[in-house]
């Protein structure tokens, strides 16, 4: 059971940190060309606006991924707790017998 919990924690960390890394990467990749465009005076305002919208969309997408990840992990926690309890009850009834 401890190892199952460990595996669950590892997958959660991998999704969480992977999502943060990809979010950083996507923002950085979008920032470079839009920063260049923003140097042209008539395009400065729209380029900055597009960058803001892009960053917001990326942040929201990854926040959603991490939220779903947390919900799945919390659900698994409940399932594992119940399994743990059932195992404990079975062990104590065996002891009683």
């Amino acid at each position: 059971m401890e190892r199952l919990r460990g595996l669950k924690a590892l997958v959660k960390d991998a999704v969480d940190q992977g999502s943060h890394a990809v979010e950083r990467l996507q923002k950085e990749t979008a920032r470079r060309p839009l920063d260049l465009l923003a140097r042209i005076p008539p395009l400065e305002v729209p380029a900055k606006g597009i960058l803001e919208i892009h960053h917001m969309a990326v942040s929201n997408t990854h926040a959603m991924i991490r939220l779903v990840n947390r919900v799945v992990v919390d659900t698994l926690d409940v399932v594992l707790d119940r399994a743990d309890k059932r195992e404990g009850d079975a062990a104590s009834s065996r002891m009683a017998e």
Partner: protein
Amino acid sequence: MRSHLELLIGVLNGALGDYLHRTGNGLATPMTLVHGGKPLRATRGALVEAHPHATARIAVLVHGLMCVESVWQMPGDETYGSLLARDLGFTPVFVRYNSGLHVSDNGEALDTLLERLVDEYPVPVEEILLMGHSMGGLVLRSATHVASEKRRRWLPLVERAFYIGTPHLGAPLERFGNVVSFALQKVGNPYTALIADILNLRSSGVKDLRFANLRREDWEGADADALLQNRRHPVPLLPHIRHHLIAGTLSTDARLGLLFGDALVAVSSATGQAEPRHRCSPFPQEHVRIMAGMDHLRIAADPDVYTQIRAWCEETREWSDCEA
């Protein structure tokens, strides 16, 4: 099935073991004795139950990076430990540990474990034989160093140490990984930086193999991802221990063997031919054997290697008899 799972967890520990340990993850393997594939507590009762015919001579076998004790298993379920028991009356004791931790951390843990083993062992221990495969050899050297500083009781009982495919001067593959991740980081592109970050997730144990760090001072306070920085501190060879080194080579051709070693460890590293730049004590070369045509894993479980180990043990026994 169970042994495959244990092996998988061993690989995971080797790759990310320090992270698992730091986050209190249940997959992190604590250092423990193992008997019949299961953890064995170092208490008198558990030891008596596991070894009802325990002898006064103990052989301690320590596996390498990303492995578990099954690495010692030969066809027919024999191991160097079981053969030493049959032929020379040793009681084999297998150690399992988190190979992703620093070698020095595992060395300290092994020192504590062996002191406890000697305390709790059912009969008075007269002799300890140490055997390490790959990183296991470095863990043994680190443990003996810690024990010599703490004046442990188990240390004077050690007469022989066998290092099988142990990278005493470091492993070229890890140095290559260090150069690649450093270069990718320096490119300044977010994609290459991400790849470098992923490469740098490899465990402290793997990074210790770059220059074969043995002591805490070798890594403490340093940037683990700095480019090829050898910060080793001296670890003298203990004079009362006979050090035996076994190296493998992929090819039977001597020149190719020198070039590729056993695929993971170079011959010069496995045979401890240190120069001043390695910041490592050179090993005496009278007990060195190069096994041609054997890769890194095969030398941990090969009848010819055992024949050599046994011959060395008997040679030493004859020497001891003469001394007596």
